[in-house]
C-alpha cells in the first residue's frame, strides 16, 4: 500500500537520501534499521511531506503523495509520530489529543479517547496535565495516541524506543502489536535491533542514505556480516 521508489532528499546542498526504495504491505509492520544519521528520519519525514527538497516517487494506495503538503498526506490516511515526540508542551494531554482528532475513515479502525486511555492508562491519569509536565515515556505515548486520534491506516513511527526506560520500551512493543491486531500498517524506524525484531515482520537497513539490506530477520541473523557492517556501533 506504500511504495517508495528512488527517493532523493536534500537539505540545502547536502544530499541525505540517495535513491531509497521500500514498500509496505497491508497490515504489515516493517522496520527501517540504521545508525544515527543513516537517513531513517529523513526517509520518514520525506514520506510525510516534511522535507522541502525531494525527488522520486512515493505512492500510497497507488496515488502519488510526494510533493503534497503534509496535512493532505495525513488526510489520505498516514499518521506520523516524530522522533522527538513534539508534544505541545503548553497544552493539556487532552488538548494534545484534540489537535490530532480527525473524522473516522471507512478503511481504518476508529480510535476513541476511551480506547486510547485503555491502551495508555497513564494518559488517563494525567489528562489534565500539561504536555511539558510528562515524563519522556509518557510524552512518547501521548505522541502515539495523538497520531492515532487521526484514525490513520498506516503509522510512521520514528524511533519510538529512543531515550525511554526499558519498562516503557516493553510497553511500546505491546502497543505496536496492538496496532497490528487492529489492522494498521506500521513503518518503524529503529536503532534497537532487539526491539525491532520483537515487533516487526521484516526489515530494511539503510546506511549513508541508501538501502543496504531488505529481507526477514531470520536471513539477517544468518548474515552477521551485514548487521556488523551497518548496525554495529
Amino acid at each position, binding site marked *: 500500500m506504500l511504495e517508495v521508489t528512488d527517493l532523493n532528499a536534500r*537539505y*540545502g*546542498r547536502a544530499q541525505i537520501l540517495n535513491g531509497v526504495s521500500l514498500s509496505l504491505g497491508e497490515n504489515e509492520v516493517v522496520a527501517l534499521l540504521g545508525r544515527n544519521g543513516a537517513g531513517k528520519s529523513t526517509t520518514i519525514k520525506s514520506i*510525510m*511531506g*516534511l522535507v*522541502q527538497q525531494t525527488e522520486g516517487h512515493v505512492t500510497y494506495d497507488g496515488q502519488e503523495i510526494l510533493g503534497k*503538503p*503534509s*496535512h493532505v498526506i*495525513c*488526510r489520505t490516511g498516514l499518521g*506520523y509520530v*516524530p522522533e522527538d515526540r*513534539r508534544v*505541545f*508542551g*503548553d*497544552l493539556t494531554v487532552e*488538548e*494534545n489529543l*484534540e*489537535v*490530532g*482528532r*480527525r473524522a473516522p475513515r471507512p478503511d481504518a479502525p476508529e480510535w476513541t479517547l476511551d480506547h486510547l486511555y485503555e491502551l495508555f492508562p497513564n494518559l488517563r491519569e494525567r489528562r489534565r496535565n500539561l504536555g511539558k509536565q510528562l515524563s519522556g515515556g509518557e510524552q512518547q505515548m501521548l505522541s502515539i495516541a*495523538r*497520531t492515532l486520534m*487521526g484514525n490513520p491506516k498506516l503509522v510512521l513511527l520514528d524511533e519510538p524506543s529512543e531515550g525511554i526506560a526499558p519498562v516503557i520500551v516493553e510497553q511500546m512493543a505491546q502497543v505496536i502489536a496492538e496496532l497490528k491486531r487492529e489492522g494498521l500498517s506500521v513503518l518503524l524506524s529503529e536503532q534497537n535491533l532487539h526491539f525491532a525484531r520483537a515487533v516487526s515482520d521484516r526489515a530494511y537497513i539503510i546506511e549513508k542514505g541508501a538501502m543496504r539490506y531488505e529481507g526477514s530477520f531470520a536471513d539477517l541473523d544468518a548474515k552477521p556480516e551485514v548487521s556488523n557492517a551497518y548496525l554495529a556501533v
Partner: protein
Amino acid sequence: MGFYFAQLLTGLANASSLFLIASGLSIIFGVTRIVNFAHGSFYMVGAYLTYTLVTMWSGSVLGFWGGVILAAAAVGLLGLVIELTILRRIYKAPELFQLVATFGVVLIVQDVTLAIWGAEDLLGPRAPGLDRAVRIMGEPIPEYDLALIAIGPAVLLAIWLLFHRTRWGVLVRAATQDREMVGALGVNQAWLFSAAFVLGAFLAGLGGALQIPREAVSLQMDLSIIGEAFVVVVIGGMGSVSGAFVAAVLISVLNAFAILVFPQISIVLPFVVMAVVLIVRPYGLFGKPGSEHGAPEEPDQPLTLMSQRSAMVLATAVALLALSPAVAADFTMILLVDVMVATLFAVSLHFMMGIGGMVSFGHAAYFGVGAYGAAMAVKFFDFGMLPAMVFGPVCAATAAIFFGWFCVRLSGVYLAMLTLAAAQILWGVTFQWQDFTGGDDGILGVWPAKWASSDQVYFYVAFVLCIGGIWFLRRAAHSPFGYTLRGIRDSQTRAEAIGINTNLHQWMGFALAGGFAGLAGVVFAFSKGSVFPDSLGIAQSIDGLIMVLLGGIHALAGPIFGAVAFVMIEDWVTRLDYWRFIFGAIILIVVLLAPDGIAGGVRRLLRAVKGGAA
C-alpha cells in the same frame, strides 16, 4: 487621593484599547510569525470606518455600538483579503520578508484613507448614553472610560474562552508552539493562518473603533500606535494574550503617573520599560523561547567571492560613478550622494543582519547619532568638517557599544525589538531635549568646509567615505571575523562549543555596523546642511530594512541593489500625488515577484536567460 485614583482609572481606560490592538498583533505573530507593521493601519481604518458609520446613524445607542462592531468586522474582512492575496504567497520567503510586504500595505492604506476621508482630523460623536462624567471620590470620571475599563477584561475573557473551549482555539495554541507538527496531524495551516489574521485584524479594528469618542481620527494614528503596540506585545511575551493584557495595564498605568512627575517622559517610557523587562526576562513576562519547529529555515548558503566578471562589472560601475561629476548636472550629484549614503547605511545594516544574524528594527539610531554627533561638534565645539566627520562615527559606535551590550544577550525578534526600543529612546531624547538638540527644529548650519563646498568636491568626499566604508564592510564579511559572525549566525551553540565568545563577537559586529551607519549619517548631515530627529526615527529604520530585505539578505550585493533601487524609486515617486500608494504597490510587486529579494530575482533571471540560450 481622589486625584490619584482618577489618574489610575484613566490609565486603565487607556490600557483597554492598547490591549485590543496588542492582543491582535500577538495572536498574528504567535501563529504566523509575521511581524505585522500593518496592524496600526487596521487600527486606523477601524477608527475611520466607525466615524463614518456612527455619524451616519448618529444618536442611537444601537447605532453607536452597531457601528463599532460593524467597522471592526469590516477590518477583519480587510485582514482576510490581505492575507489571501499577499501574505499567503510569501510564507515560504525568508523570515521577516513578510514585514516588508506589511509595510507596503501601510503605505497603500495611508493614501487610500487620505483619498476617502481627506487630510483633516475628524472628531467623532460621543457614545450615546455614556457621554457624561460621574464623580468618583470627588473627581469627574468620563462614563465612557468606565465602559472601556470593563471592555478590556471582557475581551480578554472572550479570547481566553475561544482559545480554551473551542477546537479552533486549541489548534491556534498548538500552532503557536509547533506549526509543522500541527500540519503533520492533518490541519491545513493556511486556513489557521487566515483565521488568526482575521481575528487579529478584527481586534485592531475594534481598538480603533472604540477610540472614536476619546480622540480625533487622524492619518497619523497608524504609526503612532504601532510602536507602543509592539512594546506591549514584547513585554507580555510574543504570542501571549494574557501577557499583552498585563503589559498594556503596566504601561498605561505607569504612564498615567509618570506624566505627573515628568511630562516629557510619555514618548520614551514604554520603551524604557520594555528595555528593562527584556534585560530581566529575555522573552517577556509570559513568553517562552521560540520553538525549534516554528519555521524550518533553509540553511544559509556560504558567501562566495565574486567571479572575475562580476568584479569587473562592479569596478566599472564604481569607475563610472567616480567620473559622473564630469558629465552630470548638479541635482544629479546631490541624488548620487543620497544613493551612496543610503547604500552605506543599507550595507551596514546588512552586515548586522545578514552577516551577524542580528535583525535590527532600530538601525537609524546609529545613523542619527552619527549625524547629530557631527552637527553638535560643529555647533558647540566649533569642529571643522573633517574632525566632525571622525567624531560622528565615534559617537555612533559608542552608542552601539552601549546598546549592543544589552541587545546581543537576546536573539531573533526580541533582539530586533530591543534595538527598536534603543532607537525610540534616542529619538525621544533628541525630540524633547530642546536646548541641546534643537528638538523638532533640528540643528541647522552644518555645512562642509570651504574647500569642499561645491557639489562636485563634496561628491568626492562622500564618494571616498561611502565607497571606502562599503569596501571595508565587504572585506570584513570575508575576513576571519566575518566567518566567526556567520558561524554564530548559523549555530550559536556550535560556535560556543568550539570556544568562540559569541556575545563578544556579536557585540563587536554590532558596534562596527553602528559605526558605519554613523559614517553614513555624517555624510548625510553635511550634504543637507542640517539634521532633524527624523534621521533617528522609525521610518528611517524601516527604510533601511526595506533596502536590505528587498535587495536580498542572502547576498552581499543585496543591500547595494536595494538601496540604489529604493532611492531612485523614492526620488521619482515622491514628486507624484499619492506617491505612498504607488511606492507601496511597487514594494508589493517586488515582494510577490521576487520573494528572495532583487539580488535573488536577478540571479534567477540570469539563470533563466542562460538556460534559454543554451
